[in-house]
Structures are given as structure tokens and as C-alpha cells.
């Protein structure tokens, strides 16, 4: 059984305890609230490890083209365009949105091809 979740949940518990102590000690709500949110993220990571079993090992030997992903590059460029669009103008946001859609479709196709290969 994959027990990766154990240390992760232990860590989340540690964060929760430290956040709880800060709730008791601090007169300001903001610091313990931020800390509690981080503890919540840690619990989510622990739960991911609990619910997602380890994958069976395969020493993958597969066509090299499956190791290339132009679409992922498009997604990254689109994210940058969307973010910078807030400064540069709406036109960049629109281009970024278009590139993002193209990139995501491409990634979906790549993943489908990969699944077919498996």
C-alpha cells in the first residue's frame, strides 16, 4: 500500500497545531487566518496522497514524439499574455485567450495520443 500520505498528514497536523496556538496567542485575526489557510492546503495535499494510489511502475520506452509538447508551450505563453494583458490592454487578453484555447485543445490531443499508445 502507498503510505505517502502518512508524513504529509503528519505535516498538516503540525501546521494545524501551530496555527491553533497562534489563534490563541494573537489578537489580530489575519496572521492565524493566513496560517490556517496554509494548513488547509497541506491537508488537501495529504488527502491527494491518500486517495490517489501509486502508479504501477513501467520503464516507459515509447516514441520520442510523445515526449514533445508544443501545446504546453502555447499554454505557458497564453498565461503570460493573459496576465500582461491586464497592463498592456484588452487586445492582448483576447489573443491570450485564443492561444490558451488552442494550447489546451492541443494538450488534450497529446494526452489522447499518449493514452492510445498505452
Amino acid at each position, binding site marked *: 500500500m502507498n503510505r505517502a500520505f*502518512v508524513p504529509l498528514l503528519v505535516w498538516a497536523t503540525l501546521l494545524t497545531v501551530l496555527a491553533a496556538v497562534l489563534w490563541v496567542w494573537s489578537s489580530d485575526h489575519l496572521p492565524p487566518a493566513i496560517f490556517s489557510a496554509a494548513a488547509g492546503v497541506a491537508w488537501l495535499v495529504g488527502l491527494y496522497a491518500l486517495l490517489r494510489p501509486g502508479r504501477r511502475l513501467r520503464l516507459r520506452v515509447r516514441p520520442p514524439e510523445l515526449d514533445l509538447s508544443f501545446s504546453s508551450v502555447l499554454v505557458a505563453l497564453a498565461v503570460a499574455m493573459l496576465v500582461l494583458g491586464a497592463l498592456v490592454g484588452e487586445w492582448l487578453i483576447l489573443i491570450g485567450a485564443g492561444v490558451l484555447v488552442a494550447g489546451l485543445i492541443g494538450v488534450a490531443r497529446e494526452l489522447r495520443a499518449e493514452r492510445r499508445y498505452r
Partner: protein
Amino acid sequence: MAATVSAPSTTASPVPQITAREARREPTGWTSWVTTTDHKRIGIMYLVLTFVFFLLGGTEALMMRLQLSQADNTLLTPQTYNELFTMHGSGMFFLVMAPLALALGVYFVPLQIGASDIAFPRLALIGDWLIPLGGATMFSGFLTDHGAAKAGWTAFAPLSEIDRSPGYGMDLWIFGALLATAGVMLLAICVLATIIRLRAPGMTMLRLPVFTWSMVATCLLVIASFPALIAALSLLFVDRHFSGVYEGASGPVMYQHLFWFYGHPVVYVIFFPFIGAVAEVVAVFSRRRFFGYHALVLSLLAFAALSMSVWAHHMFATGQVTNQYFSLTSTILLVPAGVEYFDLIGTMIGGSILLSSAMLFAVGFILLFLIGGLTGIIVASPPLDYHVHDTFFVVGHFHYTIFAGSLFGFFAAVYYWYPKVTGRVLREGLGKVHFALYLVGANLTFFPMLVSGFEGMPRRVADYKNIHDLSLMNMLSTIGAFTIALGTLVFLWNLWISGRRPVRAGDDPWEGHTLEWWTTSPPPPHNFDSLPPVRSYSPLYDRRLEKT
């Protein structure tokens, strides 16, 4: 094309337990690099890219040191100086040290746990692109009318607000930092998911190599604390253009809480992977199994949790934080740090130590980080912190931890793993010269900062008066900075000469303990043609013991 997988054996076995049936050719051409989802190529791209940003940041540091080399100097204008220290700090944190730490994980974690790939490779590639895009965005501020950002790497409100930091430079800084931070977060998700889901048979959590454990702690910190920076900077952009977020007496304190919730853990993000790498180096070059493995694992988890709880010790001087809590947790940090030091020294005791370049840098890391840690006790104590707050003492303290500590750890990793990545060894003689120049340079640069800061020299100022021998201290720091630059040139020469006249390394030149040394150097695209049984955190050391 599938691979055969047999159940993990519980008895000694001379034969590999897992074998791939065939090898395959590697993609070629530049597009095969920029669009690759192979974790090794992504890791190499990160390493090269971050080193370029390191050289940029280092050049900025040299310019600042020239300005400060004497009192009343007019080499740089105050505005240029402000831009330089802002971009130096930002570049080193957002574009160099944090990505560098994750880059090591992206390359070596799958190899250390016997995985053929990284989890979510496309996500890793997206992260790979977001970091240079963020860097380009951040540095493009130099091309704008008002110049690059000049509010420091912390970008505290209200200094970073529109009326005090007008122009696009600050906005570009915000977006650059956001993109780079998002990139690092994606990498952390991929590395942690790899450790959770893709471990080889027999590789239980308590058999993970020490470096991989350090990456677990690193990734947890990134995933839990970096969103605070994304929130802080997004709100800062809103505040600059629509106002109202960080207004009033509590606004700047709110920004500081959000920023430092990221800003302190990031110091550990750029510490843990390097202490993990140093632990591997110390064990291998002491010819001993790592001492105190379980204590180290526990201390890493405790260290990571505590390091999330200390952020407001940066804010003692605001008078608006719970000093007792943050001082207590900051001081308790010494306990896990002490355990890690105890384990490292315990590994060396009784070992047959080989003082290679990697080992020298590892020992340098242990010694210099100790100075960073001990000066940290002073800034963790509110009454002492009030005295040195915003002085060069703080600059000296964190450069001892980050440069003299983590960067020494990084170079220990470089000299140790370079043969695995390239199949060649770096020249040992040049490595030792590099180490000597860095050791002298780091102490010459940063120790005088502790003294001048204690005497009251404020940080983030382009000019000062020559009282309490401040000119002498600053001149020493400048000489030290150029000594470090010389050391960097020696390293670059070592890379060049080792590339031009390669000396073949073989698959396992150091007699390593962990799985990355089982495969070829450099590893094939699918990482392993076979895997040995894993019955401890140092499986190859076990095999050597079995043979003898």
C-alpha cells in the same frame, strides 16, 4: 514495449528486479529542448537559465559594491542604485535560487526513486516556460520611462504604491514575480506528485534518499506558502490601479503579513534541497551510510512546519505582531537545524573522507550556514532585532544563509552530479581553486556587513558617511565580491575546459549510494534499463556490502 516488473525481493539478489525490453533514440534539434517533457531536459534548461539570471544578479551586485566601496561615492545615482538592489534581490529569489532548488528536484528526484518520468510532465514544461517569461517581464522594466522597479525585492506597500513608485516598471515587476512564482509552484506540484505516485517497487517513504526527502519538505513549503505571494502581489496591482487595498494604518501590515508568509518559507525552499544534496555528498565522500536517517526525516518535517510559523519575526519593528509567539517559534527552529548538523557531522565521524571539490563545498556549506544560523538568533530576538533591523547586519545574515550557505550546497551538488548529467567530470584542481576563492570571497564580503550593520549602517542606501570605519568595511566587502566573481569565472572556465577536453566519468565515478548512479551517465530518455532491489535508503551501498 512494456517493461517487466517483478515483485520486490526481500532477500539479497544479484540481478536487477526490473528491466526495460528496449532502448530508444533521443529526440534531437533545438525544438526538442524547448518543447520537451523529459524531466532531465527540463531540469537542465532550468539550471542553465537560472545560472544566466545568477550572472545577471551577480553583475548587479558588483555594481552596487563598487558604489559602496567608498563613502560619498557618486558612481551610481540613487535611483539606479535602488533599481539595482531591487532587481538583484528579486532576480536572486524569484529567478535564481527558488527555481534552482526545484530544478535539482526535477532532474534528480525521478532518478533517485526509480521512476521513468516525472508526474504531469506537461505541467512541468509550462512551469519551465513561465519562469523565463517572468524574468523577461521583470527585467523589461529597465526599458520603461521610469526605469525598473525600485521598491526592494519585498515591494512593501506604500513604497510600491502608484504615487511612490510610478511607471510601468513596478507593474512589470509584479507580473514577472507572479509568473515566476506560478512556474515554481507548478514544478513543486510535479515533483511532489512524482514522489507520492511514481516510486519504484520497494521504495517506501522511509527508503527515500535524503535528497528526495528534502524535496518533499521543499515542495510542501512551496505549495502551502507561495499562494500568499500570489495573493499579495495581485492585490498590490489592484491597489496601484484601483486603490483601497493596502490603505490605512493596517494596510501596510497586512501586505507584510502576506508577503512574509511567502518570504520566510522561501528561505527554506532554497535551503532544504541543498542540505539534502550536501547530505548525499557527505555520505558518499565519507564512504559511510548516512547517519541518523530517521532523525533527519523527522527534523525536515518539523523544520518545514516551524519555518511556516516564523514569518512575522521580519515584522518585529512594526510593533503590530505577537512577538512572543514568533520569537519562540524562530528560536525553536534551532532544534531541527541542530539535528541536521548532528547527522551531517555524525556521518563524517569515523568515515574515510575524500576531500573532493564536492566534499569541500559541502563542508563549506556546513560551516558558513552555521554563521548564517547563529546570526539568525540575533534577529529572532525582538530586543536585539530592534537594534539591527534594516541595517547591513541583516544583509550579512541572509547572505550567509543564502549565498554562503545554499549556493555552496548548490556547487557541492554540481560537482557531485555533473558526471551523471553529462557523463564527464569537472576538473578537480579548478574545482578546488573555485572553492578557495568562494570561501575567501564569501567571508570577505559578508562578515564586514555584519560589523558595519551592527555599527548602524542602514541597508538600501546608495551613500553613507565614513564613521566607525564604514569605508574600510565596505571596501573589504567590495574586494570580497570581486573575489567571488573571480571564483565564478574559474567555474565557467572549468565548464568550458571540461566540455572541450572531456574526461569520461563512467556510470558511477563516486560509488554513489542512490539509484541515479545505477543508470548510465547521462541517463537514457526512459531513465533506467533496469532497477536493482531497493531495501534501504542507500540501495547501491547495500549492493556493494552484499558483494563484499
